[in-house]
């Protein structure tokens, strides 16, 4: 059997589409037989570039499953996700992993910073994943940390930073390789209101990039004001698609 040839996935062709994320009839089921549970019931949604989209809904409504599928971390049971013109169903194995590494950035609720790395080193991780030389990666990471207001804490370890600062480090890490899709899971859930506001302002500022799509999953009503679009989910369906101001 010939060895699998691993060819890099080409960057999406120009002109780039205004729709960053296109979900078509997304169904997701977990389990099998009698325990089979349908979590997403045919989600159809387009999410555009240059805007911050909020995804809200009660626990268990399928938000996390949907963003996992959008980010390429989970396969849908049926349907397809197209990211910046590339259908994810066409990508398999390492090709999908490479695509994700280059085009998707993540901000997690619990930050997920490596405790033994400094702030700059943590931010450099996506560049190391892309096989950049370590010294250059850390230099580039320092620049991004400076841009999020943490230029003075480059050598601080996560346990020496406040929650808000750690989340800003996590955002810097998500942005350092200039991904076109930024997926944020409850980025303010563990923060006080002041820190949460700072973080959301930061996300809002990166979302204005005309080539970037930012999706924020949240339970936090304080952040609704920062969204350009609001998607509300219930029982595995999108039940409301509106602008946040109408929701406030």
């Amino acid at each position: 059997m010939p060895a699998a040839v691993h060819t890099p996935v080409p960057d999406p062709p120009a002109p780039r589409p205004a729709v960053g994320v296109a979900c078509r009839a997304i169904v997701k089921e977990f389990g099998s037989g009698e325990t089979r549970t349908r979590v997403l019931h045919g989600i159809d949604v387009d999410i555009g570039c240059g805007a911050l989209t909020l995804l809200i809904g009660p626990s268990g409504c399928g938000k996390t499953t949907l963003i996992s599928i959008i980010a390429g971390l989970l396969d849908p049971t049926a349907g397809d996700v197209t990211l910046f013109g590339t259908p994810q169903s066409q990508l398999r194995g390492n090709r999908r992993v490479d695509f994700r590494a280059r085009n998707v950035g993540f901000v997690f609720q619990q930050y997920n910073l490596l405790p033994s790395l400094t702030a700059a080193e943590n931010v450099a991780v996506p560049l190391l994943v892309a096989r950049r030389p370590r010294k250059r990666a850390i230099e580039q990471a320092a620049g991004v940390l400076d841009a999020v207001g943490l230029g003075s804490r480059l050598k601080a370890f996560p346990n020496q930073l406040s929650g808000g600062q750690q989340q800003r480090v996590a955002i810097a890490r998500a942005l350092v390789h200039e991904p076109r899709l930024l997926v944020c899971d409850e980025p303010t859930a563990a923060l006080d209101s002041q820190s949460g506001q700072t973080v959301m302002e930061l996300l809002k500022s990166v979302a204005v990039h005309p080539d970037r799509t930012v999706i924020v999953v949240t339970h936090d009503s304080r952040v609704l004001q920062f969204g350009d679009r609001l998607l509300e989910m219930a029982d595995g369906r999108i039940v409301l698609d509106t602008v946040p101001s109408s929701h406030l």
Partner: protein
Amino acid sequence: MNWVAWKMLNGDIAKYLGTVFGVAFGVLLITQQASIFVGLMSRTANPLRDVREASVWVTDRHQQNADEIEPISDGAVHRIRGVEGMDWAVRLYKGVARARRPDGIFRQVILLGVDDHSFVGAPRTILLGDLADLRRPSAVFIDKAGHESLWPGEPLQLGREIEMNERRAVIVGICETSAPFQSFPVVVATYSQATQFIARERKQLSFVVGAPVAGVTPTEACRRIKAATGFEALTYDQFVWQTINYYMANTGIPVNFGITIVLGFIVGAAIAGQTFYLFTLENLRHFGALKAMGVNNRRLIGMVLLQAAIIGAVGYSLGVGMAVAFFEISGRALPDLRGISIPWQVALGTAGVVVAIITFASLMSLRRVLLLEPAVVFRG
């Protein structure tokens, strides 16, 4: 990503050291016990090793090892010398005697009687005295450990007297010998003198030792001796292994040490395996994040294997280092352990065991990492 793997590993220094020392103590246990076992087994053949100039050993036909001796007649040496292809052959006595100090304190000793003229079999490392003094009447050498055993805490001294078989013996030299299996003092005399220190028997000769002329192999010489005389004739290597194998087969030593070595393996595998596995479990969230960020399974495998290799290498080095220190210190402080060191085969074998332990631990950990869904990072 190797650098990230290294930083993840030593980020929590307490856990890192806990894992490393788990391997190190397993290695220490295995190396130490295996080395003592090999050392003890090797000691059974030490009487032969101190007579390295002899490549041919002739004994009674039914002899099974170098310690339980059926004497042969003194005239045997002449018959052996007459075998074609033998260059030289001399008598060697080895037996057990009772050495009594003038104040009545006594010890069982190993008595060696070396050839009166050639001194074949005489000790090579002389600490005090001159080997030629062995020819003086009643003269004996005693090994250093034996002197310390008979006169504990007293400085080495020539001229002391002991009594063996109601005959006076004067210590004219103190020497080093390879440690015997029984931990008895070693007393060396000439053959004719040694036979005076034991109860008289009709046959007294323990071994005839010799070497063939150039061009005749020891194996061939042994074959000719057997054919010509009916005695058992063994090459040096054959006699060494016959003796070692006898002790292996007829004592509980291999079983006892084997159990300890297996326990060392289990303890090492359990501690190192469990600690490394727990380390991976604790980092599962971070591995998940790395997976989400685009680190593929091959690179994750590389990271886990690198971490395991570092733990294995550092733990092995520490464990062997501790074992070396143990033998260095105990060899000086405990005469019973003198001469026992770590054979390279034991060091290599232990390295193989560490590879097995680390492979086991890695496989357990890798299973969790590879089955990890990157989406787990969104589940808190």
